[in-house]
Structure formats: C-alpha cells, structure tokens
C-alpha cells in the first residue's frame, strides 16, 4: 500500500521542522535517529541568529526555546542542548518524522513524486505532491554533486589561555567560535571534500595531541558526522534543495522553513 502525503522533507533539518510545523500534511524522512542534525548533530556553531526573521513566523519556536533556556536575550542558541529541546518541540507539535529511513529512489511524475523509502520494516512507497531535499549531500540526486569541503567540530571548555594559537600552529585552517556559555569554545576543523570520517577523526586527534601534549585543553565532544558543504547535482529542477549552509543558525533555518510552507494545502496524514 502506498502512503500519500502533501510534502516530504528529506532530512530532519531545522528548515524541515519549520516547514512541517506550518504544513501539517507533510512528513520528514531522516536517515539517523537525530533531529536537527544540521546544527546540533554536527555541533555546528551558531552566532546570534534569532532576530534574522520576522517575529510572526518564528515567535512560537523562539518562545519554546526561551522557555527551555536555550535561547539567550541576545539571540544566541545553545546548540548542544537543542538535541533534546528540538525533540520536545517536535513531540509537542506532533510533527510526523520517520527515523532510520533511507531514500532509495525518487521518481518525478505529473502529479508530484513517487518515493521508495527503506526503513526498519523494509521498502515503503510514498507519493507526495512536493519534495524538498534539506540534506547536505542532496540525497534526492547525488550524481555530479561536488563536495567543496567537510568539517568536524570539537567542543571544549576552559582551555589553556593560548589555546587558539597552539591549535593554529598545528592546523592553520581551523576556526574558533565562542560557545553558548562563558569559557566554551567550538573549534571547526576543515577537510577536503573527499575526506573519510576515520581519517578526519585521526587527524583531529593528532593535531590536538601535538598542540596540547600535556592535556592543556580537552575535547568534551565532537560532531557525530561531517558538516558538508556541497554544490551541484545533475538535475537542478528535479526538486527544491535547501542545503543547510544557506542558514546561519537554527532559528533562521526554522523560520525559512515556515515561510516556505506558508499557504500550503489541507492537512493529510502520512501513512506508513
């Protein structure tokens, strides 16, 4: 039996969550068990971004974040804590999400798209009027995609005073951002588009050891996966692609999603 939804959003990004919170007949299809992978899953740093869009579209979301203490008065978002807060938001809004779900194929038809999705229960077919790909790797059509860069992030707390200089001495291309709390830092390590995760993780480890041989700075945690910056794709008109690098922060991405969904059709229920 084929499921039918108004819109399928590939990737549980903040854009996708914003979109589906506004357009209830849509469904998010996510490969992992993590929501908001585009920021908190990869620990991607975010500067003040909450003022980036109109109050009307994101007021509810901002109130929710503020209520949980993860949005500061200056508009900064506590990226690590979003991991649980975004789940609470999705739960409260009853946003339909399929986790552990991989897109096998997407076929464009006159009336929309026919998708083949692989889940823990095997292959399911879903028909949808609209398809929006919010994955960094453009899973809807990867052919000829050019991955320009990949990044890993490390979160650390109260490192040595000369910490940035010491890391730059061993990895000149790394970048630093202040974390949500005082004395927290997020370090961004860039890699080329062909890098593999084991190699990149080993490189971060080697750089860190060389920079801090006596443990003068410690990694609290690292991104689970690469933050990917990609462009291209064979058929640009196949479906809309909203890679997350378009957005400076999760609230901006969420708001963009709300705006994109504005004026969508009646509710329908995803069937799976």
């Amino acid at each position, binding site marked *: 039996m084929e499921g039918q939804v108004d819109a399928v959003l590939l990737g549980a990004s903040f854009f996708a969550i914003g979109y589906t919170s506004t357009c209830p007949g849509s469904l998010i299809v996510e490969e992992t068990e993590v929501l908001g992978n585009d920021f908190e899953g990869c620990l991607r740093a975010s500067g003040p971004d909450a003022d980036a869009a109109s109050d009307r579209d994101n007021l509810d979301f901002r109130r929710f974040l503020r209520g949980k203490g993860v949005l500061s008065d200056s508009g900064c978002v506590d990226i690590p804590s979003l991991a*649980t807060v975004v*789940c*609470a938001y999705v739960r409260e809004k009853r946003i*339909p999400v399929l*986790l*552990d779900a991989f897109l096998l194929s997407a076929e464009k038809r006159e009336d929309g798209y026919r998708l083949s999705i692989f889940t823990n229960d*095997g292959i399911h077919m879903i028909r949808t009027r609209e398809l929006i790909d919010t994955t960094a790797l453009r899973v809807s059509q990867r052919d000829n995609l050019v991955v320009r860069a990949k990044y890993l992030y490390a*979160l650390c707390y109260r490192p040595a005073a000369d910490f940035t200089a010491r890391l730059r001495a061993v990895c000149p291309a790394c970048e630093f951002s202040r974390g949500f709390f005082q004395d927290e830092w997020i370090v961004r390590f860039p890699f080329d588009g062909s890098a593999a995760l084991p190699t990149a993780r*080993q490189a971060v480890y080697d750089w860190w050891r060389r920079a801090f041989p006596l443990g003068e700075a410690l990694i609290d*945690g690292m991104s689970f996966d690469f933050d990917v910056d990609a462009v291209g794709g064979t058929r640009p008109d196949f479906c809309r692609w909203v890679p997350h690098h378009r957005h400076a922060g999760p609230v901006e991405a969420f708001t963009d999603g709300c705006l994109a969904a504005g004026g969508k059709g009646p509710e329908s229920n995803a069937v799976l």
Partner: protein
Amino acid sequence: MRYYELIEGKSRSTEIGAVAFSQEFGLIVSGLGSAGTFCALAAAQEGLTVCGLERGSCCGGMSVQGVVNGYYNGYPGGLFEEVDSEANKAVGTVYRSFFNHPDAKKRVMEQKLISAGVGVHYHSVVIGIYAEERQITGVRVLTEGKIRDIGCRFLSDSTSNGYVLRLLGIAGSVGRPTDGRTQPFSSVRVFRRPDGKLGRTNHDSGYIDQYRPRSFSESVIEANASHAEVGLNDRRRERFLFLAPQIGIREGMVFEGEDRLTLEDVLYEKECARTLVCAYSDIDKHGDDYAFDSALYQEWRVANNLSTITFKIRVPMGAIVPKGWKGLASVSRCLSVGNYVSSAVRMNRDMYRLGEASGVAIAMAVKSGRGLRDIDYPAFLKAVRKRGCFDPRLAELRGFVGADGGFTPVAWLTDIREVRRQLSGDCPGVAFWSCRRLGLPAVRNDLVRMMSQVQDAELRLNAAVALGNLGDDTCLPVLREIVCNRSEYHYLDCRRSNQMRSVIAIYLCGRFGDAEIVPELLEILKPQEYGRRMYHVYTKPSYQLSITENFNSVYYQHLSFAIVALATIARKHPAIQNRIAAALQEAVRTDDYIGRITADRRMNSPNYRIAANLRTYIGNFLGKEL
C-alpha cells in the same frame, strides 16, 4: 540465483539469474556495532577479506554511539581490552575525563579495523540479499547514496535486530509470550559535571517496537525529548552536552537457529558440546511489569528473588546460525535463544567477545568450506583461548556481583540445616532455589516443620514461600496471611530490584488458583487500598527495591500481581468468573488508577504506558477493548 528483499514487512524473493558483483569479499558484516566490529576485526586478522557496513557514522554500536560506555556484567578478555586500554590513554589528555570516551573509542576501533584491512563503509545499509540454494552469495547495499551489488562467501547480520535476517524471511518472535512487549529502551544524555568530568544518565523509556517505523520514530523522539524536562544546564549540576545518537534497544527478535539456548538451560546451568563463547550475566531484564512475564522467569525473579545472580552462560555455536541457511550468521544480541536469555547475553563485553569468537569461527568456516557447526572445534577452541576471548574466568560459575563489582560465589545448598538458617533471614533466595533443586520429596517434611515454628516468624513465613515455590498447597493458609498482612517488606538478596514478600504471596496464591484469597485481592483493586501507609513509605527512589521517581512501585506491584492472580483464579473457577471480571473492569474504568501509580500524565511517557498496560491486559482477559 534468488534475490530477497523486504517490502512493507514482508519478505519477497525472485529468481534473477546470474549477477555481476562489483566486488567480492570473504565476509560482509552488516552493522559495525559491539559484536560486528570485533567480528570484522577478528575475521580480518584470521585472513579473510572483510567489508564492514554501518548505517551510522561510526563503529562501536551501543558502547560508542549509544554511550553505554561502562561495564557491569560480562567478562573481560580478548581484543576489546586492547581497544579500551588505548582509548583510555587519550582520556584526560585529548578527551575530557570519561571512561571509554566515545570519541576516543571510535577512533581506536576505526584505526584497528583499517589496519587489519577491513573496508569500513558508513551510511550504508543492506537492502537486499542474493542467495543460491540457501547459500548466501552477496548483498545489495545502499552506500553513500549509491546502490551496489557486492559478493561474499559469508554474511554476518550484526544489526542486533535481525534486519538482514528479515530480508530473507527468517521468522522470529519478538517480546514475551504474554503480551509481546519487549524490555524498556533507553535514551542517554551526556553532560559535563561541575568537577570537570563528563557524566551520563539514561532514561529507561518504556516499550518500543523497532519493526514499526512510525511508532519507533515516535518512541525515540519521546524518549529523547524527556531530557528537556529535567532542568537543562543547571550550573550546579551539569552542562548538557549531547544525546547519544543511537537509541538503546535492549531486545529484538529471536530466531530459530541450528541450536537454541533456553532460559531453562541457563538457570539449570546446562553444559554445551560446541560452545562459541561464554557470557556472564544475570537475566538483566529491565522494566517493572514482571507480573506479565513468563512462568519460569517469574519463578526465578519474583518467587525466588534471585534476579541479580550472574551465571556463566555457554552460548552454543549453532545459536548464531539461522536454521537451513549457509554462509550466514547473526552475530549480535539477536540470537537463537529462548525468551529472556537475550537479556543475559547482550552485555557490551560479552558482545565484543561473541563478535571476536564468531569472527574466528567464520574465518575457519570460509577457509575450510564447511558450515559453522562443522569447523574443526578443537582448533577453534585453541584459537579463541589464545586470544583470551572464550572463557576468561573458568572458575566463576555463578555468584552475586556487588555494586562495587566484587564477586561473591553462590553455592547451591544441600544441607537442610543451612537451608533453615537462610530461611530465617531476609536473604532466603538461594535457599528457595536450592529447595527447588533438591526437589519436594527431599525437603517437604522439613519445610512443613519450619512453617509451624511460630516463635520464628521469618522462618515460618519463608518456609511457606519455599513450599509455595515447590507447588505444595499446605502453605496456602500462611500465604493468605501474608497477603492479608501485606506490607512493603522486601527481601535483600539482590543489590537491586528485590521482591516484596506479600507480592510473592499474591503471585503464589494466583498460581495455585486459590479461590479463598479472592476477597482480599479484590480489596487491592479498590481505590481505598491506596490509603494504606505501606504505599507511601518510599518517597525517594530506592535502588534496592527498584523505586523510581514518579512511579509508585509498591502500589503497582501489588496491583498488577493482584490483577494477574485474579485472572488466573477466574480461569480455574468459572463460578466466580463474572464477579472477578466485573471487579477488574471497574478497577480500570477510569484513569484514576493510573494517577495512583504515576504522577506522569503524558500518555506517551513510559510510566503512563506501563500503567495503562494494565487496562490492556484486563481488556485481553475480558476479550474486549476497554
């Protein structure tokens, strides 16, 4: 050649002729979790070409992605100790202090796999399987967004949930026989403590069904959302850092294998002719709703209060081999085992060693062209013993493991004087089970005499429980007395999850089908029962009695066991069936009973679901939806 795939939960196969594989491997491991990683590593070290496929973005499974990084059961020994040792060298120098820091451990595991020549492919999932005459020949995999066909001589389903076996239509059962429920799953959060070290905590999160995608997704989101309710970033306590990107599922399908390891085999310590590996654990079943568990498990956990005795468990070679298939094994906690056994063979360290021993066995099978059960077993034993992964603690057969990890051996009793001594105290569990092993004829007269010792109240009551365990109904008057004088009193055999004596008495009365206890059990169903002081003694969580926040376990256990006992008695006594049925229906007519069990009113919360499941049970008993 046939191609197998799973469409909406149903396996389908088609004859497809010859297939040109893009690559060929000796072994493909689907799922680089705890067992899969070490299976791949050992097989590569033993000379196979190995391809490792993992749907996530790192290897290590629950101990890494799931951040269940500590150990409390399972033997040390084998390759994983090398990994842990190397990973922990970087803790405190590169990574913040945290035992087996997941970032440290995944790096070491990855480097070991790559050094051994294992091809490591993340974001990869097996979507179809090729087989010729039930001999696996290859897989179709979605990897990095591309679909590829890869050949292999052997395939290991190390997904932990039998996802690959399901593609082949290999039948399995899920959950306990009474209601199909599996153990609670867990969601883990990691935080930085004020002392600068990292800590973790897991939320046991109720029932989950990983084979129903929508309900699975809702359960995961619900569990991960629950951490937002605990006061994020209270600076005095913790700085929230991340949630484990993999949810902790404790139980999935079990399948029919060439050998089967049952709960009876474990509890009666059966020897095994061709052991793959020795695990070491208690029957570590989580969840409070054991009123609905199977008879043998209830006898062990409830009536004998021995839930934390750890056993040496001999896992037979054929328990990883799906019946009738060649070139296929399930190397994970998804095994050919009876209900509840998977709870005892899923510990991190045992899974590492099971993976390693399986990798050795698979390498021998592939190189010799034999089936796994037909490999040269003495040569296998020699190899795994040399690696230290087979049975690292030969002398430890059974015992209690303390909170500090200390081991206290347990010897079953044969001397009735020692039985009597232990029945006089508050740790009578070993004496109960020893009586069972000795058999009713050998102990009956002594137990009846002990039950008449009015001057020793503990001995009298515990002797009645011992007789009840053995199915001798002369104990019923004393058991009824325990029920009527019910209290929160509990035994102390175990470091956690001890049983209350009055709950045991309710259970035994139910098992006897005792109609005389019915009026007292009906009292337990009434709202005014909750006014008893015994239900309000514990105001804080208690590990010893398994009391958690927001859940009145003393009340729940009495109520749930009373419900099950009444249903059992009703089946045996048709004359009082209607009266019992009416009382059961009335007990759950409104949600008031749920409010007495838990203050948590969210319908998706684990506590609420467990409480609500009582209504489901009664509905099933009555044959109608309530």
